[in-house]
């Protein structure tokens, strides 16, 4: 069980590899495994598209 850094949900995770991308089942955020011991997740940055208005 790890806490999602975006929404705070407790996520069940299996075996993880460093730099693996997982998705939070609650908020849908894409999370990168940046450390394994203990497990640290970080949100993958995504750009807000700007269509200019």
């Amino acid at each position: 069980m790890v806490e999602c850094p975006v929404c705070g949900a407790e996520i069940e995770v299996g075996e993880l590899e460093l730099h693996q991308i997982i998705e939070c089942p609650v908020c849908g955020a894409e999370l990168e495994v940046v450390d394994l011991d203990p497990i640290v997740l970080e949100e993958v940055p995504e750009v807000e598209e700007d269509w200019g208005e």
Partner: protein
Amino acid sequence: MIKAAVVGASGYIGGELVRLLAMHPEVEITAITSRRYAGKKVHKVHPNLRGLNLRFTNDYNFDADVIFLAVPHGESMKIIDEFLGSAKIIDLSADFRVSLDLYKRYYGEHVKPELIDEFVYGLPEIHREEIKKAELIANPGCNATAVILALYPFKGDVSEAIVDLKVSSSAGGRRENVASIHPERSHVVRVYKAFHHRHEAEVIQETNVKAQFTVHSVDLVRGLLATIYFKMETSEKDLYKMFFRYLKEPFIRIVKEKGGIQRLPDPKYVIGSNFVDIGFAYDEENQRVILFSALDNLIKGGAGQAVQNMNIAFGLDETLGLSYLPVYPI
């Protein structure tokens, strides 16, 4: 099969009820009423329903297990005696939604005050248990549904909020009015009500938040968006948590994307469905929470929610006849 009657079936809510009930696997429509169109086929008013073998009547002597009242507010309370006792009643007007006190403050005199307390407020996400046993259900207003569901997680923590609404033309009903003709009503952002809109009453009652509604008519036929503002010291993460309570709700979707063009709720994404989409943002600099809540006013804001209430009150699966995915693009 549940026998259902729709009173006021020539209006927009009435038409949508007929559409949904006709496709419902456990319902048989036994009567649809209209005074103006009595004797006419349903498709003379609702051209989408061509093919259904239904005719309007103005005879209230029908056989029904559930009666939907889809008449204007002020009219339900005048005609309800005709139906009391004969069937479960789901009233879509505003007549029995709020306490007498609030009613007087926002609407005026009530001709059936003694009945108000017998009604359950039909917002399933909040009053599911009471609805199960209810004989009389007051279906919430469309704006109120959107705002209450967004604000409910903050009940107790927030005392006032600004609610900026953008609403579609079908919310005004199928009524002649020079303000509603196409040349006047297209391409507007018209201030329909600057403040003290009647649906505030339901929000106060259900959330204890003194919400100030400013309602704008926009160029949509269906759908609405509520943008809600209030001050609060919090964080995005904590806001997510506030909405965890809705995770199991079949008709609430939390919409909050980081990227892409469609990051937050838009009525365009729920049209034709019973979903309400709720999203949020936190402006840390101003310590302001901004909530967004979108729904189809004729479905989750009206007929769909009424069918959801019927399902609950008759012990059916709550989602029966309501699991339609929104139509997109539209």
